[in-house]
């Protein structure tokens, strides 16, 4: 393998972190929904907002990696 592209490795690390973060949110939200199904719509909204914040940080990193790569 000639010329290993560091950008791709960086993108892999970024996506790993984001997937871990969003996965934990999903886990926590599902546990909370199972315990209190009556407020599941509120939990869902909060879950999406937090996931969107993580995604925002991820996209910053991806765009920086893409521009420098």
């Amino acid at each position, binding site marked *: 393998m000639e010329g290993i592209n560091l950008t791709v490795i960086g993108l892999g690390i970024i996506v790993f972190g984001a997937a871990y973060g969003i996965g934990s949110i999903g886990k926590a939200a599902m546990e909370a929904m199972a315990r209190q199904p009556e407020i599941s*719509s509120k939990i869902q909204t909060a879950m999406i907002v937090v996931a969107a*914040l993580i995604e925002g940080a991820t996209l*910053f990193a991806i765009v920086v990696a893409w521009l420098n790569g």
Partner: protein
Amino acid sequence: MNAVKKLIFLWLFLIPVVAYAESEAAAKDAPKFDVTGMIMHHIGDAYVFHMVSFTNGRGEKVHVSLPLPVIIWHRGQLQVFLSSRFEGGKTLVAAGGDYLKLYHEKVYLTDAEGTIHYDDAHNVLNAKPLNFSITKNVASMLLASLLMAMVFISVARVYSRRGGLSVPKGLQLLVEPIVLYVRDDIVRTQIDGHKADRFMPFLLTIFFFIWFNNLLGLIPFFPGGANMSGNISFTFTLAVFTFFATNLFGSRHYYKEIFWPPGIPIYVKLILIPIEIIGLFTKPFALMLRLFANITAGHIIVLSLASIIFVLHSISVAPLSIFLSLIIYSLEFLVALLQAYIFTLLSALFIGLAVNEHH
């Protein structure tokens, strides 16, 4: 039945190997397929609306496309002509003493010979005229606006004729639950009281506009297929609207929290105030980037999966490639709605943070 399943499973695993062997044999005479170029061409803007390409009986490649109007304002002169006058970049068009050249789907000002100047990194140095052209993206956006106008004006007419409390019929059945969902579960949960209804027109428009544009971008043939909501200028404009909607209607309390947060020591304030001011801009910036990156990434994935066939020079990967494209395509239909929802939800959240009374 079980045996068939096993065979299909085995075949799915064998495909890459077969395809690779074929591509080794074919690569010697066939020209290399430019994946990046093809994808960039598809997700970028254009001055023609491409419909179909085929090879005719004499072995010539024929592109069928719809030329779109080019509108240029240069040296106080307005020029309107169809992009077919460029003949794909071969012909220059005179404009107020200078010449216009179409080069890599962008219009530049050149001299009479059509010289393009480059810097060391092969970027074009030629100046660009003020360009108000109806490009592929703009045409797609206008189409989305037209569709929205048709749907919502006809539904609104029915409401004014039959009354708002009547049993919904026809298109109403499709639109009413979505509008109610946006109102009750997105806007009213984030913005308090009567203020929610003030922002409803803006947020509903943004929701449906993004959704319609996302869906039009997913249609793979002629009137769709433009990457409108994956264009950063488009998402930038929407984010600027949200920025103004947030900050023009911000309460006194909201601005006090930013410029002089109460209840903390002065040295913390000095650190916090710049962060808060940067935060004013990062919120719409993240909105802009999120929509742009999600939609563009979706287009890139579908196109990449389709181009596996051409990269490997083999038709035996076609079933796998089409199957994977289909899965991603279905996912993109979900993403089209989800991104419209997230954009609206976050806009409502930011507006709510700004306008709500302090509890």
